[in-house]
């Protein structure tokens, strides 16, 4: 019966794949800022993603956590408005602005109705250009950040991530937590926050992506309205590429819990590497493919050792890994870890034609499904810009996946996948390690 379903699928496949092309316009504002736009006037609002490259990685060396705290304070009062007045202003316009920070970017997800878009943009401009950093807001948000640091320190997943990052990236900013430590955050002053803002929020660092009810000309004006008051150049250089250090070691961190959180990683491939797409397809078969990957089959479906195991090519702007994770009962952790290594190594034997075909149909078929809303589209464009991908990527990407052969996959498995290089961090009380 598998056969009958699958042959029906194979027939309909060709017709379905050339999904509608996504038209990404490049817009340059009168003030000289470029943006990407997917225009769609069917719903009267616009979604805007604004990303400032560098993110928390441009923290001054002895001020770890300053950019994180600064970002959290952008919505806590700006221009003439204190924190309350600013939030009320957004509510009155039914607009929203979410401020976030990662290793690679400070990001703002903004959404406004067409009818009052300019007023909402003025509020956002205040937040980015004229944040107040009032003393009471600083103390309040500092306490919240310190509380989140404590929360991370008591979360086995976060403990594993933190340790893995340190092992892989060492002294590079990727190797430490973006929120800083309780101690570093305690020492941050208002001047540090002002300096942190100038290190990252500047016009030469900004990437703008828009989707929804706005045309190119209006978008140009809107961008200048929001970003025109920012400094032309950021004061901090972008950090250097991160050099990955993996030794194939296994580290156990004691944690009193019935399960062990297992995190593992080895070197990955940059997105512009000629073998990236072969690795991408390979990863799907190995551990990226939801319920149908080899790791899920061996560890969950056959043996019930975990609720979920997954892998992915983790590409950041300055470095990349091939990483994965799971959580498993302490007394069977040794068995589950051995299976990860075994399945990892077995990829060198190659994949079946069926696996390759299924992986390609999934990866190519799933891609157009992501472009089904303004917010989602703006987010995708922002990720593409951050990773330095060209605009036509959205329309060529599936061809690159189609071009991957079984021989490519096997070659990449042999050249890149190495169970001996897999670094493990285990948080729990694992047995059999």
């Amino acid at each position, binding site marked *: 019966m598998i056969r009958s379903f699958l042959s029906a699928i194979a027939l309909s496949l060709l017709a379905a794949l050339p999904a509608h092309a996504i038209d990404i316009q490049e817009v340059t504002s009168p003030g000289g800022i470029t943006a990407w736009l997917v225009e769609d006037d069917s719903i009267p609002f616009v979604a805007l993603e604004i990303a400032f490259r560098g993110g928390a990685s441009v923290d001054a060396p002895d001020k770890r956590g300053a950019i994180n705290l600064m970002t959290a304070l952008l919505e806590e009062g700006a221009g003439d408005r204190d924190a309350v007045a600013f939030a009320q202003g957004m509510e009155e316009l039914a607009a929203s602005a979410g401020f976030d920070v990662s290793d690679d970017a400070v990001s703002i997800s903004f959404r406004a109705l067409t009818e009052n878009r300019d007023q909402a943009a003025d509020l956002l401009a205040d937040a980015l250009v004229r944040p107040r950093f009032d003393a009471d807001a600083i103390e309040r948000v500092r306490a919240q950040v310190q509380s989140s640091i404590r929360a991370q320190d008591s979360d086995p997943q976060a403990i594993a991530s933190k340790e893995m990052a340190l092992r892989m990236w060492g002294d590079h900013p990727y190797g430490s937590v973006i929120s800083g430590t309780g101690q570093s955050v305690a020492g941050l002053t208002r001047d540090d926050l002002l300096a942190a803002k100038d290190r990252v929020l500047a016009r030469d660092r900004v990437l703008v992506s828009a989707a929804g009810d706005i045309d190119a000309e209006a978008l140009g004006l809107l961008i200048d309205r929001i970003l025109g008051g920012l400094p032309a150049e950021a004061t901090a250089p972008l950090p250097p590429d991160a050099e990955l250090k993996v030794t194939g070691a296994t580290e156990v961190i004691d944690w009193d819990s019935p399960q062990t959180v297992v995190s593992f990683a080895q070197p990955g491939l940059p997105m512009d590497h000629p073998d990236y797409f072969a690795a991408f397809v390979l990863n799907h078969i190995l551990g990226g493919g939801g319920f149908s990957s080899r790791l899920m089959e061996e560890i969950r479906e056959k043996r019930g050792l975990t609720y979920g195991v997954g892998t992915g090519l983790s590409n950041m702007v300055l470095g990349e890994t091939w990483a994965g994770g799971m959580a498993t009962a302490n007394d069977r952790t040794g068995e589950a870890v051995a299976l990860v290594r075994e399945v990892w190594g077995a990829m060198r034997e190659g994949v079946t034609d069926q696996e390759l075909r299924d992986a390609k149909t999934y990866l190519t078929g*799933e891609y157009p499904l992501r472009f089904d809303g303004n917010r*989602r589209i703006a987010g995708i464009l922002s990720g593409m810009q951050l990773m330095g991908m060209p605009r036509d990527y959205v329309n060529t990407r599936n061809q690159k996946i189609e071009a991957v052969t079984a021989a490519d996959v096997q070659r990449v498995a042999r050249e890149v996948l190495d169970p001996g290089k897999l670094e493990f961090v285990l948080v729990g009380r694992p047995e059999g390690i």
Partner: protein
Amino acid sequence: MMRRTLAFLLATAATPALAEMPAGVSHFTLDNGLEAVVIEDHRAPVVVQMLWYRIGSADEVPGKSGLAHYLEHLMFKGTEKLDAGELSKTVTANGGMDNAFTSYDFTTYFQRIASDRLDLVMGMEADRMANLRIGEDDWQAERQVVLEERAQRTDSDPRALFGEERSAVQFYNHPYGRPVIGWRQEMEALTREDALKWYDDHYAPNVAVLVVAGDVTADEVRALAEKHYGPIPPKPDAPRDARPQEPEQRAERRMTMTDPRVPQPVLTRSVIVPERNPGDQKTAAALSVLAELLGGSPQTSFLGQRLVLTGQALGVGAWYDGLSVDPTTFTVTMAYAPGTDDAGAEAALDAAIRDFLAQGPDPAHLERVKTQLRAARIYERDSAHGRAYDYGQGLAVGLTVEDVNDWPDILAAVTVEDVRAAAERALGGRAGVTSLLKPAPTGEVGTVQAAAETDAASVAVPGAAAGGPAPVTADADAALADSPEELGTPPMALDATAGAAPVPADTPHPAQPAPASPAPAAPASDPAQSPAPEQTR
């Protein structure tokens, strides 16, 4: 847990005009009782099929907790036509994703796929409505999987453990007091026979709601539904029975748990309140607005201004979700800084609540909430998947399509007086559960103090799980739905994880430590979050 209230309001707010069907939405019922809602959105060649069974963990018999969820997992183990795992493999091989989730009141299966594959996925979904087969080898391994799921989501998380005990104390008699995933010792005893009986008793077209959203037309969906679901006979006895209801609750209950894995103390106060009912949603609307006014935004909500802006709390929240078959809970939470004494924190919360009851809501704030609700009717059109969730969940808990359509107008009509009355009802009495989860020195894991301030505190009700049914949108970004924000989390979600992967344009999901959800589109029940009443496959 209940998700943040405004998010809930927004995600649920549908579109205009009392009792009128919004543009692009249609509704029909097949002869065998299967009810269907179609939501057209032609912006992208995508479709979501959701099949909601009006049966959930609160319909289980005592002693078999976790059965509804266990069967949900086993529904992927094949039929006469499909091998174990083949349904998901087929969906994946066609570029789609699929998953399922179980709540107190419903069990839901969904696929998101290219719109020209609807025939394929509907055929498979209909097949397993009638022809499930569970292999001898599969049921035991899958029982291990759900036990590992419990270990990951509940046993490893003191907030989740405390949450299920709090629910057990909250509900004396109603099965909302039992966790959706089940008590461990009962899960360990579930068998293939239990699962098949559950399936035979309850899986039928007259218990199901089909929701299809995306690049399809109502006529296409109707034709496909007739073809695939139409031939399946109804089962007259399949609909759930009425459940045991709560007696009047009189006693104040208090409970405390300490655990070294808890980062800071969180105080929670919860009471039982009415849910949304067909033709009768006014009280629920007032409670929804009340939750937003009390605990919505840290800067503008009443408790936020009183407790967070003054530095007495790190975060506050007020939660209510009326999408529930039976009465649900209204919950207020406060996370306070270490060093604040427990009694002082509670006194500050009590004083704030007293003042709110005395003053009533700020009319200007109520007006702003309504402005956002009006805008939500525009924003929510950006996610067909989110709208599918709204209709599906509404119908699954017994509302009609008209009730779902009317809800935004009922919310918009809430007055200051309505909010006052709702506040009196939710906050004015004493018969609630006040619970404190606090850090403990290492070595004292999970010390539960049976906090006997009243006799009621020691009532050992079999069951747990926090109030009311599931929030959660099936999509990380489905419209305006935040992921369920849990009680202990500080209000600000800046990522403190080192090396967190960005969202590059291509990784299906960031790979860093990905132990959590196995499937890309898992409904947002983050296992790190507190006791989500919903369990994902």
